[in-house]
């Protein structure tokens, strides 16, 4: 015999279960009508949000402070990619540690793994490396040279001047996937560029103070930063790309820095601080801590803030006045 109270209880429990079940599906319904976009790094999340505005729901994968070469594949990334209409990524195999593996299991016909390029294959893919002036293309592909990026240096997001190109590609990509709102994306792009481009001109002017300045970086990822600032990067703290420094290499590096008068060490924030401090002590060089993705350092969550913060760090460490 079930009492009335019990009935109510059962009903309540049943309803609660139903609500919980539906909650799992709710985000699906919520996003309906909006373009669901997954961007691999915070820089691209920011730019895509600016261009997609309220027409796109943008989710990121890497959060910023990670080493982009070693981003951990989380199953929660799989569910995001599974439902994505578009995948915005840097390309040139910089996301090789996580994007191909995730796309492989995400079962999204719009964005599948491209076995040939470590990138994305399908109508939903927006590759932001299209048209980039690629630097440091390797002459040989041998692992004796360390962990090379086979298509050339992919860290172009360190050059603020690549921002407008990335933004245009994203706008074109969104318009292709959602032609109904092409005019909106174009308008948002214009608004974004009218804000970004004057800043880039200003940074370029400030960077002139760094021209010809000799520096070493931890990883070989600063070619584009060198191109923008005119800093002459003569060596890396790492022995070879992806290979931690050995004592012999560090000794030689100290000699080289002293010999060439290198007064700046650029440490990408994800790399070991101690080695750089030791090196600074030995050589009297200043240390600039930079991010290789937006949000790598505090208060750098947008592409604009990220570019500005990096430049500021370089100017300060080089003893010049920042923006």
């Amino acid at each position: 015999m079930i009492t009335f109270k019990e009935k109510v209880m059962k009903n309540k429990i049943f309803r609660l279960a139903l609500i919980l079940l539906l909650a799992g599906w709710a985000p699906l319904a919520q996003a309906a009508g909006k373009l669901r976009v997954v961007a691999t790094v915070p820089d691209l999340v920011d730019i895509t949000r600016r261009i997609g505005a309220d027409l796109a729901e943008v989710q990121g994968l890497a959060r910023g402070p990670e080493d982009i070469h070693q981003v951990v594949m989380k199953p929660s990334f799989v569910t995001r990619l599974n439902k994505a209409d578009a995948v915005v990524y840097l390309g040139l195999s910089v996301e090789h540690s996580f994007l191909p593996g995730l796309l492989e299991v995400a079962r999204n016909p719009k964005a599948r793994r491209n076995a040939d390029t470590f990138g994305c294959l399908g109508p939903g893919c927006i590759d932001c490396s299209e048209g980039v002036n690629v630097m440091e293309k390797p002459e040989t592909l041998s692992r004796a040279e360390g962990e090379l990026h086979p298509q050339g240096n992919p860290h172009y997001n360190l050059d603020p001047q690549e921002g407008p190109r990335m933004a245009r590609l994203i706008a074109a990509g969104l318009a292709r996937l959602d032609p109904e709102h092409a005019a909106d994306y174009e308008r948002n792009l214009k608004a974004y560029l009218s804000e970004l481009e004057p800043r880039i001109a200003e940074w370029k002017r400030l960077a002139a103070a760094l021209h010809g300045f000799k520096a070493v970086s931890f990883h070989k990822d600063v070619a584009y930063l060198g191109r923008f600032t005119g800093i002459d990067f003569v060596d890396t703290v790492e022995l070879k790309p992806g290979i931690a420094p050995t004592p012999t290499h560090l000794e030689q590096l100290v000699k080289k820095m002293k010999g060439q008068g290198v007064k700046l060490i650029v440490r990408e924030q994800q790399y070991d601080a101690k080695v750089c401090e030791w090196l600074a002590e030995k050589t009297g060089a200043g240390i600039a801590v930079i991010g290789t993705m937006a949000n790598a350092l505090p208060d750098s969550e947008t592409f604009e803030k990220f570019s500005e913060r990096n430049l500021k760090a370089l100017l300060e460490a080089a003893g010049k006045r920042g923006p």
Partner: protein
Amino acid sequence: MRQTLSTWLLLLPMAAAAQTEPASGVPSLLKRLEDRVAKLEGAPAKTSLSAFNPALGLLLDLAYTHGDGQRDSRSRFRFRTAELNIEAPIDPFLKGWAVVNANPDEVEVEEAALETTSLPYNLTVRGGRLFAAFGRMGHFHDDEIPVVDRPRSLDTFIGGEARADGVELSYLFPTDLYLNATAGLYNKVGGENGRADNAVSRPLDHFTYLGRLSTYLDLGDDHSVELGASVAWTPKRFVMDTSVPGDADGDGFPGDGENTSAGIETKKNTWRTLGGVDLTYRWHPTKGGKYQGMVWGTEVFQNDERRFAPATKLPTDRVKAYAGYSYVWLKVGPRWRPGVMVDLSEDLDEARKLTRTFSGFVTYDFSEFHRLRLVYSHQMNNVPGNQHANIVSLQWTGILGHHVHGFRDR
């Protein structure tokens, strides 16, 4: 050379255009040319990574092992494996891969499988010889487990790697919560599982059926938990008693014109279930994750089956036995990864017999593709007059060519 040529090809039409333009157009023309040449120079290297050829990788695994038992102590060098990995997309709907393992005794196919890449409704079908989706470490290749030799619980309960010939269907739930379900049908599960032979045919109720459900929770940005439950069920099994002449026609007169090599066959009550739950906790700090981190992995298995005397193959009792391992693996600095592991394994025939293995291990990564690993294990069991053993292994591993850590090998 080719670049010079293409530059000239580019120059020609533009030079023609320049003739029609007034003189003031020349500097802008030069600018345009410069831009176009720069674009050519800056185009990504056209080194297609595989160009229709499959991606190839070869893993070399060498070890030196010293065993210190009750009675003697011995060492040896072990050429453990040269493991060839071949992988490529086949067409827009399918990919395929093979893993061929060459060790001093034999060359064997570890995996040779096809997998769909574009089925609708979040479904994926895999078939061939593959590592069944049972548990977690069972479907890791030897080089991906944290120690040199596979934990005893996996060796005795699964039968080494969860290698299986068969098909699997998996489904990813379209929810925000990661939820994955897998169903499988195989000849048997376990590379060293001697209960059935891949080379003989069998009725449907002698196959092994698998079900697995796994989920994942982010605990903030830096912590996560993965949970899984698996069941491998084999409804029936043939076991021949080879000590007695056979009575295949069942007329009560064994050996009357029958194949006398066949003995008494036991069919009743031969079902087996192997169940497992697995839990993986990870600490992967978003900031500083290059130099620190932690994985805590645990699996527990239950084996429920009717056992047979090893010599006579005569049926004995149904035994429910448990086994499992748990390990903690740290990342300290860019190169060092130390850890500890405990393995507790009951005897499949006699659950009261328990073997305990305590291991300490450390991995030194020279690079992503080159590492050294040192493992010390102390093993003991609770049999009267019990045996203790100490085992030390030093392993040296290198990978040539292509190597991907897939999502499944995390």
